[in-house]
């Protein structure tokens, strides 16, 4: 919340709106789906899009296929409320733990008394009612039974649906930038396949990380941590998303895209997730994981791995660093305690240097785009202001190394990427332009033609 307050007024409003939504619980999930659909289909930077991104990053997101966003609101909003929760939890836990199954009915009575006592205390102490309701729920013992009407919400959280949506939108950006005529069925199949692959990878990631997630503030409300779903079901869900997803990509689009999808799942679940606890190299592996979806989009459209695909992948790869390094700067305590090897904890200087280096790399990569005939020369010129701004924030982060500069850089990265992709799309070199030799105005286009011909 305080992050929202430090930004410009519209964003503060968005922050307030988001915070309220976050606390009203799973009922909001259907609305978010509709929201997501609108966002995915429009690709316009509207206020809603900002909302969507912010909600994704500020509420439930996690380290993931492409974005390393972590819900900062968790750590920012609730430290005070959590202190209350801990005190009250203490009372309940002391009551319940020494009780054997024989005394279940007695314990149920006394625990219920405890709970009502605690509940009334919670109601008077907690100033914000939505948060109070959540913490009340949290302190109760829950039956580990799957209720089918909860299942969609649980699976959405298991598959990190919002992050998946962002991954799909980067893949569709890759598809859109490919210099071939647009085919709707191919586009839809590629997006669906990528989405399913992303759901599978995210579910396996959560399956692996249950005890670690329970110890970190932003991830402790995940379905497996809360026991809302069994590990077996999580694995079955992952398999039932991943196998059809990859099959769809291989058979419905092309084998190259399918192979990339399968490789990405492997990279994320078997390389990145274990590596997070072993060495700081995980950040680089994770950046590759994030760079692959747009490459997949491109290969889905063209069927081959061109320089353009690699450039798009490179842009996303470079973007991951300022995004993630800035985010991880505020989470150092949780990472240290949880045992995660992150640059921000072990090599803080390197963390900031790398972030700055890659901000500058973005400028360079944007300049390469017209050389490879993906966009016109207007692209590096129009994107220069936003690239310079993020580089400036990267420099400030490098120099100041404090919480406010890291937050500024992180929030900038959130709007920087969609804006960059949008500008790239609008500056895309039209396929028709290339075919029509006679009508071309200006020397640069003719030069482009000459390069294309062989």
């Amino acid at each position: 919340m305080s992050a929202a307050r430090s930004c410009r007024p519209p964003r503060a409003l968005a922050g307030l709106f988001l915070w309220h939504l976050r606390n009203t619980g799973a009922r909001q999930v259907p609305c978010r789906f509709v929201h997501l659909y609108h966002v995915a289909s429009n690709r316009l930077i509207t206020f809603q899009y900002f909302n969507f991104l912010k909600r994704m990053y500020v509420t439930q997101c996690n380290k993931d296929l492409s974005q390393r966003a972590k819900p900062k609101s968790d750590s920012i909003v609730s430290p005070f409320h959590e202190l209350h929760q801990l005190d009250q939890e203490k009372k309940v836990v002391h009551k319940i733990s020494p009780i054997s199954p024989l005394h279940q009915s007695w314990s149920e009575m006394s625990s219920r008394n405890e709970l009502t006592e605690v509940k009334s205390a919670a109601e008077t102490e907690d100033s914000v009612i939505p948060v109070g309701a959540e913490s009340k729920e949290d302190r109760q013992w829950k039956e580990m039974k799957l209720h089918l009407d909860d299942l969609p919400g649980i699976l959405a959280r298991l598959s990190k649906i919002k992050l998946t949506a962002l991954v799909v939108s980067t893949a569709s950006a890759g598809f859109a930038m490919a210099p071939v005529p647009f085919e709707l069925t191919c586009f839809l199949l590629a997006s669906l396949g990528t989405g399913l692959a992303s759901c599978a990878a995210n579910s396996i990631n959560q399956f692996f990380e249950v005890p670690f997630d329970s110890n970190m503030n932003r991830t402790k409300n995940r379905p497996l941590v809360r026991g809302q779903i069994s590990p077996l079901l999580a694995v079955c869900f992952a398999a039932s998303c991943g196998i059809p997803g990859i099959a769809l990509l291989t058979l419905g689009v092309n084998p190259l895209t399918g192979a990339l999808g399968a490789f990405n799942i492997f990279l994320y679940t078997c390389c990145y997730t274990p590596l997070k606890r072993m060495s700081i190299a995980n950040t680089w592996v994770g950046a590759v994981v994030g760079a692959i979806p747009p490459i997949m989009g491109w290969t889905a459209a063209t069927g081959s791995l061109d320089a353009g695909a690699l450039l798009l992948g490179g842009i996303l790869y470079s973007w991951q660093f300022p995004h993630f390094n800035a985010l991880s700067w505020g989470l150092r305590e949780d990472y240290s305690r949880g045992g995660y090897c992150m640059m921000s904890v072990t090599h803080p200087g390197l963390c900031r240097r790398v972030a700055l280096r890659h901000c500058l790399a973005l400028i360079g990569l944007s300049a390469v785009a017209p050389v490879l005939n993906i966009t016109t020369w207007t692209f590096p010129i129009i994107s220069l202001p936003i690239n310079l701004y993020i580089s400036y924030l990267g420099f400030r982060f490098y120099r100041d190394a404090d919480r406010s500069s890291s937050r500024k850089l992180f929030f900038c990265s959130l709007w920087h990427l969609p804006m960059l992709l949008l500008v790239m799309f609008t500056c895309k070199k039209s396929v028709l332009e290339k075919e029509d030799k006679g009508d071309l105005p200006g020397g640069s286009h003719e030069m482009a033609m000459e390069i294309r011909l062989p």
Partner: protein
Amino acid sequence: PPAHSHSDWIGPPDKHSNLRPVIFYVPPKESALERRLREARQEAQASNQRFWARHNRAFRQEKEEFIYSRLKAKGLEMRDESGQKATLNAEEMADFYKDFLSKNLKKHLQYNRDWYKRNFRITFLMGQVALVRALRWLRRRKKNVEQ
């Protein structure tokens, strides 16, 4: 959890380990396979609880000691005039976090290996139990249809 319940119950996060304890339901006619699964889960729960409770306690203790030693070096007290606990800012704590992480890295590597093994084993057993139950249900259905 109520006495008549036929499922497991999960509780609020433990104060020390942040893990949620589970009370496992023991069915009257538990098969050997189901018992193996339940025991594996109980063992994993106990082991996780031990590790994280100890680890988190060590973290809190070392953090306190670090803050105390740094404050002393600066010539300040643990609590200022208003009675509030004095804290160091994030940059000063960064040294502690880095130190703590590198000290515990080996412990974490060992725990990771343990956890992954346990997790796979439990999930595999769950799969076996589910399969056996499904086959039993199908056989019962066939018997009912034949009757």
